[in-house]
């Protein structure tokens, strides 16, 4: 380029970069960029210089005695940050603290709080939350309203991160979310193991620090997206858990119609052809105490074989057709399948509706940790670790958490839990051990145990 040509080209590029170029000049710029590699190279160098200077400007305080105060809000409005992550946002927020005019648009706000104790920052109602900001609620309750109109009520202890104006991340704790505005359709709550996407709903989610996540739909529907699993559309009354580990496991909870047919939305009724069924003449049920000793069930309980007889109870208050432990005790149900079996699914059924007080359904809840082992049975019982004394933890189940039960009437009287994986089998086991937790009772009453009606174990089909 000769000096004049170079001067003209610089004028053109500067006009474009400053946003003052005319349509005619823009067409000329495009034509020159296409045909002249030298001009293209100059243009790209100019853009890079522009980007460098912009970056330097953003990261350096304005000089004292500068003639005017800058106002870069428009240029720097970081709507794109909605997408991203903590550090990206915190960089910007850091800038915003140094330069208030850079403060980004809020993705959410604290709506209200009750007895809220925070780990570090003392959040206040009305306070803006930007994408990437994380709140750690030690105790109490705090409600966050997103830009979209969706809101999430956190129950401490919880750690929650605002991702965007319609998106959050529950690191751990409990969160009840409601998305009822048009703009909040598709509200997404992430956990470490998957995400829950609103389809016009309200739902409850919880997550433990090791990533175990649960969700229950109170109204409407939610899509659960778990990597490696088909998308699960969950309707009102359904719940889902996601258990990490070598074999990822889904725990699906449903409430039944409360009839002897044990009908559920998607999970089948009790089976008499499963691998553990009494008719196969291989399985055996034993109850163990906390030290591994063999114990008897509650004096009114049915025998162990009730769990593998292919049917559930005939009524909601039928102790003799259920298997359950003595009140206030700790116990384990050991299911010996008689041989190692590649297991595809496990279903557990419960039913309880007090005859005299229909609101009392405390024995309907299923709260257990399921362990498995193959070959010979370990001499000791599992501890709390994922792999413990020869046992493999398969799943943790707490249906009260799924159904967000606070009081008895909230608890479905008839419940089923299905445990399965995205792989053909969840494991090859001979022994299944259900470490059952009792349900705490108010006013000094002894804790109660679940009325289990049936446990079905399905083997992987031989041709699989």
């Amino acid at each position, binding site marked *: 380029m000769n000096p004049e040509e170079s001067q003209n080209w*610089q004028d053109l590029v500067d006009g474009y970069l400053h946003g003052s170029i005319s349509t005619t000049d823009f067409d000329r710029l495009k034509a020159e960029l296409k045909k002249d590699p030298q001009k293209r190279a100059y243009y790209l160098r100019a853009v890079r210089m522009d980007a460098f*200077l912009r970056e*330097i400007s953003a990261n350096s305080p304005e000089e004292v005695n500068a003639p005017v105060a800058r106002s870069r809000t428009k*240029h720097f409005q970081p709507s794109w940050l*909605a*997408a991203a*992550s903590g550090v990206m946002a915190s960089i910007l927020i850091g800038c915003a603290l140094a330069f208030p005019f850079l403060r980004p648009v809020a993705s959410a706000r604290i709506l209200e709080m009750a007895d809220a104790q925070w780990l570090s920052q003392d959040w206040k109602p009305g306070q803006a939350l930007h994408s*990437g900001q994380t709140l750690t609620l030690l105790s109490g309750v705090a409600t966050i309203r997103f830009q979209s109109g969706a809101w999430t009520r956190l129950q401490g202890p919880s750690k929650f991160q605002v991702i965007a104006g319609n998106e959050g991340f529950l690191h751990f704790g409990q969160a009840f979310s409601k998305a009822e505005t048009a703009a909040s359709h598709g509200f997404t709550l992430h956990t470490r*193991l998957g995400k829950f996407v609103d389809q016009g709903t309200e739902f409850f989610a919880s997550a433990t620090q090791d990533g175990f996540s649960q969700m229950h739909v109170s109204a409407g529907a939610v899509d659960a997206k778990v990597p490696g699993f088909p998308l699960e559309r969950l309707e009102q009354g359904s719940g889902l858990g996601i258990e990490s580990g070598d074999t990822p496991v889904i725990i699906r909870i449903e409430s039944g119609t409360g009839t002897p047919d044990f009908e559920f939305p998607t999970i089948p009724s009790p089976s008499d052809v499963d691998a553990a069924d009494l008719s196969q003449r291989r399985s055996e049920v034993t109850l163990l105490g906390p030290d591994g000793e063999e114990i008897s069930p509650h004096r009114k309980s049915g025998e162990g074989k009730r769990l593998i007889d292919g049917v559930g109870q005939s009524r909601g208050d039928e102790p003799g057709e259920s298997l359950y432990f003595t009140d206030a005790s700790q116990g384990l149900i050991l299911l010996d399948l008689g041989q190692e079996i590649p297991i595809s699914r496990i279903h557990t059924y419960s039913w309880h509706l007090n005859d005299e007080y229909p609101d009392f359904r405390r024995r309907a809840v299923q709260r257990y940790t399921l362990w498995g082992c193959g070959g010979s049975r370990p001499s000791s019982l599992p501890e709390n670790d994922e792999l413990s004394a020869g046992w493999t933890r398969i799943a943790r189940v707490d249906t009260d958490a799924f159904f967000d039960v606070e009081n008895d009437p909230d608890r479905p009287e008839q419940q089923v839990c299905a445990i399965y994986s995205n792989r053909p089998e969840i494991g090859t086991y001979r022994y299944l051990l259900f470490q059952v937790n009792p349900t705490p009772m108010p006013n000094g009453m002894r804790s109660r145990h679940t009325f289990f009606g049936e446990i079905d174990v399905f083997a992987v089909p031989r041709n699989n």
Partner: protein
Amino acid sequence: MSDPLPPSDADFDFNEHFAHHEAEFRAYARSLLPTWDAVDEVIQSASLVMWRKLDEVDLPKGFLPWGKCVVRFEAQKYCRTKARDHHVFDPELLNLLATHLDEDESSFGQEQEILEACLDKVSATNRRLVLAPYRGHGVLTKLAEASGRTRNSLYKQIRRIRNRLQQCVEEKLRSLPLEG
């Protein structure tokens, strides 16, 4: 199971890598897009794509080229949707520019450091002037009013400073020892 979600304590890689290369992604996007507002929009969608597909990348080496590729596609998408607007490049030009950018092996970070060193050598007045266009609308006008000059003459001076800075950067880059 692969962890799908970057924004957690366990997912530091995305944050770290994105923050490290963010300025370069923005510069790359600006080469293809008409305004910084458009860059903001494209970086928003590109960062989402990167964030969700991080497990596809061979980290850390592959992050930058892959990230640029994502920015390029998102910029192309933006230009398609804004094709009727003023001053948006057409697909042919976008491809030409992107190809040129992808062939450029210079180090963005190193160049930026050199530029900062060069900028330290200019006078405070010139530094203030060359950064003025990024300080917000009206800043340059006020500078012009305060100094009794026209905006146009200030732009010309800014260009001269920028050209000197460019020259300084290129000289320093040439003087660097060759790698390998």
